[in-house]
């Protein structure tokens, strides 16, 4: 060894060895002592600055191989496993990307029959839930740790005692769609004489009731938005939160794909009170108060019935305020008989009966509304409370449900659970209900589980674990098996269920083991469809009309409870990614608020952020253009406190305002007033300005205009292209030239791309305070502008990420050459070269560059300066990081890279295999997650690539193209069907 490198040995000389039995135990000790000596001496002068700055501690690093290398793991390469995501409000088939034994990303499973196109934002963010530090670390009894065996023994003993004593045993779960679990629960119920009840935080039992009454089937039908020429939605947020939004988004977008062969755009009417995501995408949005929904449906039915020669149902229901506008709706519906779809987002069975009547009149049943693949979801009812509240149950087992938080009668439920001699919570995270229970049995996250799912009838999929259990947890099913004394492993239980029930559904595999392996590989199995026809009971319509007629006119303000697309029913608060993702309509993160109409606000003198009191909630007000005057919209799912760290407690719990009506929970109630408290709190609003100021940012046209001229609304593009000239020779891109096209007509604003980007690119969470200070870090954002009068504006959206301009203004101004142009047309950003002058950000006309204002990631060299309100820089949550993307340190600029790590990976695969790269093979995270296929990425040098084709579309334009920045991102104009 040469003399100069002796310093690696000096370690021992300075560190008295405490226990030489662990000779390598002190690897954190820093070795290059003589260098550091040297630096101390050079503490002054310019040279020292250079030295100190580039001096990083150089620890003796260990390279520890596997003891036995698992065959399926190649260090440095990702493996993908098929699995399924199911949470209280949605389902998605996914591929789990696993690097070195850790799931790091969820991607859509293209083989899925339900969600092949993309995922929702919540699915994307769910990977973080696995690494949640707030999860239960082990089983608990009365808050104290206990071991599984003694807990099991005690519970079995008590259950048997209670069963023998004839006390009822209740098992409360959310809707369970797993066929194996259902079978298991049935067995369990039999063994202990237990009663199983399903409970949904936001129920759809009213829909099922209506279907039972009208069609004679207690089911949620499937909807075919792709077949509908005219969609009329009355307060139904089917693109955001209703039933199966990922599936519906894809169907919906497929009818907004405009090209010469398909000039037919569907027409979407949205009649609603609060501005929902779906409403903001509608071709025509009709503003109506929430209390008018019944009248509106009745009006539509009667008008249609008259037109179609059905008898109108006589009643004294007054005509709604928007009757004139509804006449157009009715006309359009009548014109697209059999190809239209009417839906309503209200759980009132009477309303749904009328909706069914309308669809029946329009002959939509069997066409756009089908009963073949009905949803197994939302099986909950209000019956579950009967036993719990009235029969003095002996044991209450609550599995993943949180009624104490999300039921309006939470006090009664709380008392009942506390009264029960035995209460068991099976949950992964602490919540309001598990707090009350005697026993807590932690369950693993869904990425650690074996399970299966039958979301839609006949479409069965599996869930398989992708990492070892992080905590001492056990699946609920395993617990049930254990308590029943069944020694079968849960995995085997599922497999045998599949083999006995689904093996015959296919004929490719003859061996059951091969069959199972194949299922695990594909993730899903689709059985055959049996045509189902339903009867129709007209008499129910009359009943429904009568009950609507008896509705009392609404008093004061009506409060409508909505679901936030990110937060959902209340699971979101524990996921900081979801909290930080701004609502696509209001662009507010980290809070819920009461949306009020601008006219109301002016009347009451309320501005954004004024704290108001309504009902018994004290909540900031938000002035929402397009809000109905007498309706206040408040999102549920906020105000979770139990088991939620202080930093993540946001908003107020609005579930308490839900009301029970004829045994159905309704998410609206009237008779409220607004009271100003005089307090004010700024909300984390990421977009302060709502108007485009007449600038050609989002360009749009109507369908009629487009039919006349495909470049309608985009005349400017031609003009700018015409002026395209340059003083000097442009750079040539001799190989690839990456580009992206975004169809504004397809983008619904669901934010799946934002969350996919978060996951893929290790984007830090900065917290509410920082978002308020405009320090958010998202690389892709979805701008939303209002157009027209504030009472009911039109909404346009535009996803904006780095435009990768060929004449990038940011590149010219970086003094240290940290950002420049790659030979493939990428605007590249070298974080390690960046010194953080922010000049590039100032000079970016799109403002897509993000600066690490504080040490959000903990990767800074300076100690004790971390700013991480969401605790995502602890060791456990850090495991989610994508190892292929640098975690940026404090003080550097970052921005969208077109997922360059994916470009590299796919290029390399093609190179190694010696074949050209295929178009569509390479997808950035945003494109991959987008359920509506609005984003297309590819090689612009390839004239046949999809992106090149889209760039040639007359609808294509570049954002701020008049600046001659030559972006690589193109936008396709938004076309509204207003004919």
């Amino acid at each position, binding site marked *: 060894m040469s003399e100069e490198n002796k310093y690696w040995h000096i370690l021992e000389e300075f560190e008295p060895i405490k226990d030489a039995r662990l000779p390598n135990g002190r690897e954190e000790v820093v070795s290059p002592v003589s260098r550091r000596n040297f630096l101390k001496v050079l503490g002054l002068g310019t040279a020292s600055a250079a030295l100190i700055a580039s001096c990083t501690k150089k620890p003796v690093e260990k390279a520890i191989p596997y003891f036995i290398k698992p065959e399926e793991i190649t260090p440095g390469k990702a493996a993908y496993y098929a699995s399924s995501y199911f949470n209280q409000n949605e389902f998605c088939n996914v591929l789990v990307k696993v690097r070195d034994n850790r799931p790091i990303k969820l991607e859509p499973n293209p083989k899925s029959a339900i969600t092949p196109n993309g995922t929702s934002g919540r699915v994307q963010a769910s990977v973080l839930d696995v690494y949640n530090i707030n999860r239960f670390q082990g089983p608990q009894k009365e808050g104290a740790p206990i071991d599984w065996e003694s807990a099991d023994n005690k519970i079995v003993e008590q259950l048997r005692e209670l069963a023998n004593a004839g006390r009822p045993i209740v098992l409360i779960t959310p809707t369970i769609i797993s066929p194996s679990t259902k079978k298991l629960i049935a067995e369990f119920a039999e063994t202990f004489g237990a009663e199983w009840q399903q409970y949904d935080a936001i129920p759809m039992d009213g829909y099922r009731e209506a279907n039972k009454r009208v069609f004679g089937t207690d089911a949620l039908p499937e909807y075919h938005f792709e077949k509908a020429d005219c969609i009329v939605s009355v307060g139904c947020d089917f693109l955001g939160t209703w039933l199966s939004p990922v599936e519906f988004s894809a169907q919906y977008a497929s009818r907004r794909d405009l090209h010469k062969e398909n000039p037919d755009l569907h027409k979407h009417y949205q009649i609603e009170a609060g501005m929902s995501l779906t409403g903001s995408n509608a071709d025509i949005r009709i503003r109506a108060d929430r209390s008018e929904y019944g009248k509106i449906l009745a009006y539509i039915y009667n008008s249609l019935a008259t037109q179609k020669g059905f008898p109108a149902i006589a009643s004294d229901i007054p005509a709604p305020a928007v009757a004139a506008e509804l006449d157009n709706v009715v006309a359009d519906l009548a014109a697209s008989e059999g190809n239209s779809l009417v839906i309503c987002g209200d759980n009132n069975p009477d309303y749904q009966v009328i909706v069914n009547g309308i669809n029946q009149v329009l002959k939509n049943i069997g066409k756009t509304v089908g009963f073949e693949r009905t949803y197994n979801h939302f099986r909950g009812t209000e019956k579950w409370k009967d036993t719990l509240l009235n029969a003095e149950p002996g044991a209450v087992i609550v599995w993943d449900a949180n009624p104490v938080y999300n039921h309006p009668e939470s006090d009664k439920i709380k008392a009942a659970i506390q009264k029960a001699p035995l209460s068991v919570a099976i949950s992964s995270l602490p919540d309001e209900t598990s707090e009350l229970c005697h026993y807590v049995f932690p369950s693993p996250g869904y990425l650690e589980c074996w399970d299966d799912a039958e979301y839609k009838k006949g479409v069965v999929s599996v869930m398989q674990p992708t990492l070892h259990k992080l905590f001492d947890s056990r699946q609920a099913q395993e617990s049930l098996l254990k308590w029943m004394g069944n020694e079968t492993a849960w995995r085997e239980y599922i497999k045998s269920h599949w083999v006995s029930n689904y093996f015959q559904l296919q004929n490719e595999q003859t061996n059951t083991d091969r069959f199972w392996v194949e299922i695990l590989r594909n993730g899903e199995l689709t059985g055959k469809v049996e045509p189902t026809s339903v009867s129709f009971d007209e008499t129910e319509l009359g009943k429904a009309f009568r009950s609507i007629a008896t509705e009392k006119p609404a008093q004061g303000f009506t409060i409508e409870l909505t679901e936030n697309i990110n937060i959902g029913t209340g699971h979101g608060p524990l996921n900081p990614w979801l909290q930080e993702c701004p609502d696509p309509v209001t662009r507010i993160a980290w809070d819920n608020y009461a949306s009020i109409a601008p006219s109301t606000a002016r009347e009451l003198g309320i501005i954004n952020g004024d704290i108001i009191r309504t009902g018994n909630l004290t909540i900031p007000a938000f002035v929402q253009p397009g809000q109905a005057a007498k309706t206040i919209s408040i999102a549920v799912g906020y105000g979770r406190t139990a088991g939620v760290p202080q930093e993540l407690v946001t908003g107020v719990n609005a579930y308490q305002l839900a009301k029970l009506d004829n045994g159905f929970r309704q998410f609206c109630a009237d008779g409220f007033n607004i009271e100003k408290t005089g307090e004010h709190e700024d909300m984390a609003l990421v977009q302060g300005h709502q108007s485009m100021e007449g600038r050609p940012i989002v360009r749009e046209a109507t369908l009629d205009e487009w039919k006349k001229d495909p470049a309608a609304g985009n005349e400017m593009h031609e003009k700018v292209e015409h002026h395209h000239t340059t003083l*000097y*020779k*442009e*750079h040539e891109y001799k190989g690839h030239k990456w580009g992206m096209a975004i169809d504004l007509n397809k983008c619904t604003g669901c934010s799946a791309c934002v969350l996919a980007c978060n996951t893929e690119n290790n984007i830090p969470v900065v917290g509410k305070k920082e978002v308020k200070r405009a320090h958010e870090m998202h690389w892709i954002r979805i701008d939303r502008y209002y157009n027209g009068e504030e009472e009911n504006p039109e909404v346009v959206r535009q996803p904006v990420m780095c435009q990768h*301009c*060929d*004449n*990038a*203004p*940011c*590149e*010219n101004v*970086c003094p240290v*050459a940290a950002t*420049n*142009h*790659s*030979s493939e047309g990428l605007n590249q950003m070298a974080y390690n070269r960046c010194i953080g002058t922010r000049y590039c950000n100032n000079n970016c006309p799109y403002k897509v560059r993000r600066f690490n204002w504080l040490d959000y990631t903990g990767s800074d060299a300076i100690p004790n300066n971390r700013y991480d309100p969401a605790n995502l820089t602890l060791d456990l949550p850090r495991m989610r990081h994508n190892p292929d993307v640098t975690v940026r340190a404090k003080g550097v600029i970052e921005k969208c890279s077109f997922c360059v790590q994916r470009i590299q990976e796919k290029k390399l695969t093609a190179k190694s295999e010696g074949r050209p790269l295929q178009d569509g093979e390479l997808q950035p995270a945003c494109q991959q997650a987008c359920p509506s296929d609005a984003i297309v990425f590819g090689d612009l040098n390839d004239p046949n690539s999809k992106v090149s084709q889209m760039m040639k579309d007359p609808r294509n334009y570049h954002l701020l193209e008049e600046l001659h920045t*030559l972006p690589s991102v193109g936008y396709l104009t938004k076309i509204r069907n207003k004919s």
Partner: protein
Amino acid sequence: MRAIVYGYFTDELDLLNAVKELQNKGIRIADVRTPFPVHGLDAALKLRRSHLPKVAFVGGLIGGTLGLFFQVWVFTKGWPLNFGGKPFLSLPSFIPVTFELTVLIAAFSMGIAFLLRSNLGPGSIPDILDEEVTDDHFQIILSEKNNNLSETELVEALAATGALDVKHVNAEK
């Protein structure tokens, strides 16, 4: 042993007259020390023009050329990078740095040349004969070394011009 003879005036006009008078007599003046640059003294003493402007010119030329060529080399040979679609050799961008380097090198080369040429610098110890020279004394110094006159003759000659307080010392060199 060579003697040095010096005296002073309190008015620069007297000094100029004296210088002329002495030169008319053929006496060589070793040095004239004044509190500020006296107009016309250079001409009276027949001092050659300074070369400092030439130094500055050469320095500026070197600075500018090196600066420009360095930038050109970096962007064409060293590592050509595409910044915002500009050509690699974007000459207009190089003007500011070239200019600044020209001025910097010119100024400093001249400054250093001045100090070296005048034997001034930190730690340089001057042979001060009269401290008032930096106040209001205009001093003429004559040396035996480059005159054929004796010490007393020099004293007389100087005194004759009206110089005050004429003194003589024997300098070693």
